[in-house]
């Protein structure tokens, strides 16, 4: 336990200069971040950017090539057994046994974590109540809908009362109502001091996190609260503002907009274009330029950057850096 003293006691996760190499390939490249207790930490990034590798390193499945990591006060390099006793993990495919009933799934995972019979019984009752699984205890988990499977999986991951839960794309493939309910549950649990490490592809979910980080090809390129990220100079440089241009001809409008002087960047979002423009370019000028070129514009309005804007800007910038480094 001597290593634990080196760790700032208040952090749930503290990762310092994490590196993981697979042969020549560096999957995780000098990643550092801290997750405080009770936070909902959203970990985002494209597929194959190293999200799962980081989770595997933090849960002690993959040795670190370099760097250090403390999870719930324990050094994962030397103490991964105990780390696993203190954390819960729910994967995107919910990892249930379809041929076992809801109750049997709960009992199995409870025993895996070594709960004694009395505690197992109490925890199962609590979990069933919290997740509303009461009517389904004798049902085979194969016959549950996606939302209920997810609740059961979450229940299984929490039987041993972990202080930290890893949720790997917890809402992939479930309906919007179940998605909303899961987030309500996460807020409730986090109010009780439980920390969540959540990966997701949904930007609206990222907006709900109290802390987000974005990993891009092994590099952490954003880390902070959603609001602090919106104000990053890379995202919102001085002397610029952001507008939303709604038009029926998005692709033509995009091509044209990008040629205009004063436009820093432009990206399509559904039926509209999000553009970062210089302060001296007035909204009316922009509208005039567009209509002069025969592009019908329904609406132009100023816009606060969304998290998606943030990640798009940072990705562009990082790509440019990568290419510059290659040349």
């Amino acid at each position: 336990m001597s290593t634990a003293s080196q760790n700032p006691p208040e952090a749930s996760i503290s990762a310092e200069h994490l590196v993981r190499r697979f042969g020549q390939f560096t999957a995780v490249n000098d990643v550092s971040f801290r997750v405080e207790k009770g936070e909902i930490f959203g970990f985002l990034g494209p597929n194959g950017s190293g999200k799962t590798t980081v989770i595997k390193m933090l849960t002690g499945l993959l040795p670190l090539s370099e760097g250090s990591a403390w999870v719930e006060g324990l050094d994962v390099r030397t103490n991964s057994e105990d780390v696993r006793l203190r954390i819960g993990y729910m994967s995107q495919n919910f990892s249930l046994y379809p041929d076992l009933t809801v109750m049997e799934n709960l009992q199995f995972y409870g025993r895996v974590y070594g709960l004694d019979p009395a505690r197992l019984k109490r925890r199962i009752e609590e979990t069933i109540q919290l997740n509303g699984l009461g009517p389904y205890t004798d049902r085979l988990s194969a016959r549950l809908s996606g939302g209920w499977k997810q609740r059961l999986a979450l229940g299984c991951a929490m039987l041993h009362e972990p202080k930290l839960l890893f949720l790997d794309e917890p809402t992939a493939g479930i309906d919007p109502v179940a998605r909303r309910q899961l987030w309500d549950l996460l807020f409730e649990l986090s109010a009780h001091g439980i920390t969540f490490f959540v990966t997701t592809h949904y930007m609206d979910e990222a907006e709900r996190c109290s802390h987000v980080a974005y990993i891009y090809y092994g590099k952490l390129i954003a880390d902070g609260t959603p609001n602090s990220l919106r104000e990053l100079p890379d995202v919102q440089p001085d002397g610029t503002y952001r507008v939303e241009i709604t038009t029926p001809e998005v692709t033509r409008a995009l091509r044209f907009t990008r040629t205009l002087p004063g436009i820093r960047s432009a990206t399509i979002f559904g039926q509209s274009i999000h553009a970062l423009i210089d302060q001296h370019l007035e909204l009316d000028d922009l509208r005039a330029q567009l209509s002069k070129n025969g592009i019908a514009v329904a609406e132009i309005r100023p816009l606060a950057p969304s998290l998606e804007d943030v990640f798009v800007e940072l990705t562009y910038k990082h790509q440019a850096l990568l290419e510059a480094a290659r040349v």
Partner: protein
Amino acid sequence: MYNGFRGFRAVFYKEILHVRRDFGTLFFSLIIPLLQMVLLGFGIDTNVRQVNTVVYNADGRRESRELLDRLKNSDTFHIIRYVESDHDINDAIISGHARVGVKIPVDYSDKLLHGQSAQVLVLIDGSDSTVAGIAINVTTSIGLDESLRRVLPDRATFAVDMRPQLLFNPDSRSPNFFLPGLTAILLLNVTTFLTAFAIVREKERGTLEQLFVTPVQPYGLLLGKLLPYFGIGFFELCLILTAMRFAFRVPIHGSVILLAFLSLPYIFVSLSLGILISSKANSQGEAMQLAFLTILPSIFFSGYIFPRETMPLVFRMLSYLVPASYFINITRGVILRGAGVQHLWIDGLALFAMGAFLLTVAARRFRNKVIMA
């Protein structure tokens, strides 16, 4: 506290639930081997008897008819037809109606009476080497015997009298030969397939990934998954032995307890093989293919059908790598020859070593290829 077998009990209970819930699979995996036994036990007879034979007797006199009687009495040949030309003999063999054609030339009796060498043409269909071999042996020995009878004075005895005596299987019953070997193949079938599937199914469902993040330790996990199938394998063995002893009346000359004891390392090898397969395969289809890959050498190189002694050197060396080789030696040893532990301990030890080796390799592969992938 570090406990290398943590999670064993939880996994063991759960595995038993899986087996009970999927009773159909269990039932079939126990019944199909018995069906295979019935097919092989009743259906296959390696003793060549009553081979279809056509005869063209161009001579037709007493001497020629005596020769044909001797062929018939050998029990090896069954004369289905008498034909009247060389062409008909050929035709009967080509069409597959007969395996053997015998032509007695027109001057057969004349030559015998004049003390000359009389020739009999025996045409044998070589497409089945077992039948052909027996046909050659029997016709040659009938010819020799017939010749000696004519050369030697009455009541003379043969200078050398070979008295072959078949030990252990005096009636040359095929089930006695086949079933002890089949036991090894069937047991391998059940245990390897069931364990491989049980683990690959967890891979397919993603539950294996989940288990790795829990405090379950690799040996706790593997052992918890193995043990139920160990029990099933052992039960299967008892079932097969009971059927063999009472339905097929194969006497067990040695100690049943010794046989049961020596089957433990064999079941261990089969299960380890199943785990090794599951570390490679990512779907049940893939596991099936790999499992068949292990079944084939067990059938062909283990001495189950073809004797290992007659194999080319390379394959004979290969046969030492096949676990079934050792277990077939054990089953035939105990069941047919009444062998004791002093004869068979080395086979048991070899199996145990193989099992330990395979399990170690499988556990390592799991750590490096499955968990860290």
